[in-house]
């Protein structure tokens, strides 16, 4: 309980929804990022237990951000948020160091399952 989370997505809509799902499950959303670059910066500052990462974002996409985060912290726990039809990108993200993924549209139960797997 009380795991800290950094939510990264360029849409406020998605950030709000993910934050709500996680907050209701007892997580503490400690930060949000709108771009990949912000995600990398905030990860450094906040050292959250979990990161949710959108794949397509302006100014450094999610995959590059994962790569960058895992380069400095190989144990970083990043959960990719993808849309249908992005399998190739998801595979790439996992190879870059992401630990799991969820596919939009989000079902809260699926999101939480994935989070549990990531946090082990």
């Amino acid at each position, binding site marked *: 309980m009380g795991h800290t989370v950094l939510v990264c997505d*360029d*849409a*406020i*809509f*998605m950030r*709000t*929804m993910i934050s709500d*799902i996680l907050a209701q499950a007892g997580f503490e959303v400690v930060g949000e990022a709108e771009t990949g670059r912000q995600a990398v910066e905030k990860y450094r500052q906040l050292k959250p237990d979990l990161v949710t990462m*959108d794949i*397509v*974002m*302006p100014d450094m996409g999610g995959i590059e951000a994962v790569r960058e985060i895992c380069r400095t912290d190989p144990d970083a726990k990043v959960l990719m948020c*993808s*849309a*249908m*039809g*992005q*399998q*190739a990108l*998801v*595979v*790439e993200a*996992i*190879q870059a160091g992401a*630990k*799991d*993924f969820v*596919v*939009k*549209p*989000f079902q*809260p139960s699926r999101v939480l*399952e*994935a989070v549990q*797997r990531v946090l*082990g």
Partner: protein
Amino acid sequence: MDLSRYANLFLAESREHLQTCNRLLLELERSPHGTEPVVGIFRAMHTLKGMAATMGYAKLTELAHRTENLLVLLRERVAGAEADMIDLLFQAVDALEQSIDEAVAGHDETLDFTALLAKLDEAAKQAQSRTGEMRAVRSARQTTDVAAIPSATGRLVRVAIRPDAVMRGGRAAIALKRVEALGHVSGVRPAAAAFEGQDFDGRFSFRLHTDVTDPVIEAAIRGAGDVESVSIGEAPVPAPLEDQTTVGGARHIRVDLKRLDSLMNHMGELVVAKGRLAEVVAMAPTPDLEAVSARINRLVTEMQTEVIGSRLTPVWQVFDRYPRLVRDLARQLGKRVDLLIEGGDIELDRAILDEIGDPLLHLLRNAVDHGIESPADRRRAGKPEMGRIVIAAARDRSGVAIRVTDDGRGIDRKKIAERAVKEGIMESVNEELTDDVLLRVIGRPGFSTAAKVTDVSGRGVGIDVVLTRVRALGGAASIESEVGHGTSITLRLPVTLAVLRVLLTRVGQERYAVPLAHVAETVEFDPQKTTSLGGKEALVLRNRVIPATRLRDLLQVDSGTASARPPAIILESGDRQSALVVDALLGQQEIVVEPFEAPRGMLPLFSGATILGDGGPALILDAAALL
């Protein structure tokens, strides 16, 4: 989950993204070859799709998804977006804009995009057939990479992801990643690249070399989620057939361009060393030395030809993309243009070809935009409605000439003359405006007279950019234009960049190199045969008056003394000539051009520098600047 509280957020943000799409589509329409607008539109559309899916708006999601498919193809394509494709994207954005309120009001299911979806699919199909070839190349490359994985020993592990799982490939990738943490993984079948495909069925196998027990392995794999079964054993793997791409015959191999560059640089040094050797031998000749030197000379020359030859690329490799671009541009401007390519087999050094692609595109754009008239205007002028642009490459002395000719309206010399007088290039509008002066005027940075008169699309001219690039390559440009009949611009380029043939001269204590490509002849500068041209010294040569420049004065050299009848080099570019007076001529030489950054405040006379065979430096004069 109650989604209604997200509705307003969804509406506001969707509108913003659709607005972005509209703005970027306009940008794309203006420059159909830009990739940035496409990437931006894709991103906005993708975000919209994710939001709509999350809100449960199936119809909106579907429309956004199919639009996105088309954008992906557009992003991967070499050529630009066609006008009708941009139209279609506009329609999709409009439809989304009109429908988001409906969807939020709870009427998503009643939305009907059938006709639009069909059009999007059709356009995607067409675009796909054009990109198919590129993809084939890409996937072939992946196949070879994977085939390189050696088979190894270890436990054979077979995994099946649940068939109903979303993105089975993603799950497989996680499973693989997790076992990689346990030991050494090899012999992955199908190759990991297959995980990225939509048709991956979720079954894969690999060999794992590790000390941990089977239950640990199984637990790690199941931790990836959506795993149906895991079997760990020693059963032999049926080796799947691997796609193998074999290159027909063994006549070609691929070589990294960097290696060729490096080879070329060494070659250049070798050529210089060869020249130095000949000089040294000449100082103390013996029959043996002379024989060896002559042999080395011949071998190096042959090698040089081969090395340069290995870098030569036929111009069609760059020209091939032009017909499509010209067609698209003409279509956008409501013109009819036929582009003809001549001399596509003429070869140039890859480095030069890469540099010249954009300037040529610039010239073609100008020809379509400013040169070729509208079909109606052409009809009135008694010309065929279909305009014609020819891009032709041909050998020219030791280099290559590329000429872009259009049969359009030509350049209005009166307007240019007015501008030339304003800029102080000409004294009066009544003077004859030669082709040379014409090029100088339209080649000025920021030149825009013609743009104001004829510009339809709001694109700047930028001839100055073309001229700068060509000069940087050691080439020259010339123009011919006749009102009503069209314009022709010729770029003269060296075949290769690395080795330059120069005439070596001396002024004071320093040596200067003049590229031979610009040297017409050398004469004696006889003060008795000089006259004055616009208050400046000029040389009379075979009844022609040629403006003269004394390099000694230009460079403010005062060491040593100039002879009474010094040599003069007649420089030539197009129909322009100029005499350059130096202290002495030292002979012809091949030199290697070194990158050169002129110090601040230096006269813009030099295009580069070189180290000569004896180790001393020489500056390379920019002949075009002296003309």
